[in-house]
C-alpha cells in the first residue's frame, strides 16, 4: 500500500503537524516574559514579609504609646451616676431659699445671738 493510501500513515502525518511552529520572535518573547515573572516573584518574595513586619511594628508602637500615656479615668460606676443625678436635681434649687421648720429657725436665732 502506498503511504498516501495507508490510513495510519495519513493520520500520523496529520498528527505530527510538522509544518507548524510558533511565530517568529517567540523565543525572545518567552525570555522577556520569564525575566518579568522572575522580577515580580523576587519582588513579592521580600515585599510580603516587609509588609508584615511594618504592620507588626505599627501595632507594637501603638501598644507602647498606650502604655506610656496617662492612665485612663476609671469607668463611671453606678453610684456615681446616682450622685450626678442628685446634683442635677439640686441645681434648680440654688436660687430658692430652703424651707426650714420652726425648731431650726429657733436654733439659728439662738446661734446668731
Amino acid at each position, binding site marked *: 500500500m502506498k503511504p498516501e493510501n495507508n*490510513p495510519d500513515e495519513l493520520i500520523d502525518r496529520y498528527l505530527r503537524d510538522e509544518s*507548524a511552529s*510558533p511565530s517568529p520572535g517567540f*523565543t525572545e518573547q*518567552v*525570555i522577556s516574559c*520569564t525575566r518579568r515573572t522572575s522580577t515580580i516573584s523576587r519582588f513579592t518574595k521580600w515585599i510580603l514579609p516587609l509588609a508584615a513586619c511594618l504592620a507588626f511594628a505599627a501595632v507594637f508602637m501603638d501598644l507602647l504609646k498606650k502604655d506610656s500615656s496617662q492612665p485612663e479615668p476609671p469607668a463611671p460606676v453606678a453610684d456615681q451616676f446616682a450622685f450626678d443625678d442628685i446634683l442635677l436635681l439640686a441645681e434648680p434649687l440654688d436660687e430658692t431659699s430652703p424651707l426650714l421648720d420652726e425648731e431650726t429657725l429657733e436654733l439659728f436665732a439662738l446661734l446668731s445671738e
Partner: protein
Amino acid sequence: MSILLPDSSPSFSFPGFGIISSMVESDNPSKPDADGDESQTLMLRIASGDDVALTLLINRWKNPLFRFFDRSLNNHADAEDLTQKVFVKLHAAVSRYKPKAKFSTYIFTIARRLLLDEFKRRSRRPEDLTDPLDIKSPIVHGNSRNELEGALEQCLAGIPENQRTALLLRVQRELSYSEIAEIMSASQAAVKTWIYRAREEARKSLSEFRKSNHET
C-alpha cells in the same frame, strides 16, 4: 532502554504538580533521549543563571510543545500562549529542579496540566467571546488535502481529551506507553485502550471522508 537515575529515589517533584514517579524501563524506546539528557543539563545551567541555556532549552522544546498544543486545541494563538506558559513554569521551578526522570516526561506533564486548565477555562468562557482572530483560517474547499485535514481535525476535536492526548504523545513524541501513563497519571492498559480507540475513530473518519469524496 534503561534510564540511569542519579539516586535510588525513583521520583521527582514539581511544585504545584505533585510527585511524578520516574520510569525505570521504557517499553518502546523508539527515540533516544539525548534531547532530554541535554535538557536536564540545560536546566541545571539555567538554575545557575545562564541565559544562553534558557534560549537553547526554549529553542529545543518550543516546536514539540507547540505542535502538541496546536493539535489539542486547534488554535495557534492558544497553542503559543500555552507553550509560553510551560517555559515560564519551568523557569520558575528551575531552582528546585532535580533531574531524576526523563525530561520529556517532566515537560509534557506540565504541558498536560496546563492543557487541562485551558479546557476548564474554556468551559467557563462562553463561545461567543472567542476572538475571531484566534480561530484558524477555514479549510479551503476543493483542495482534497485540506479537506482531509479538516475531517481529521473534526475527528480529533470530537474524541475525549485523554484519548487525543495519549495518541498525540505516542505519535508526535514517540513516547512509550509507560511514559504516557506517567504523564497522564494512568495505567499502561488504560493508555493502550485510549490510543486504540482514538486511532479507530481517526480511521473511521478517514474512511467516511474517502467514501463521501468518492461518491461526489
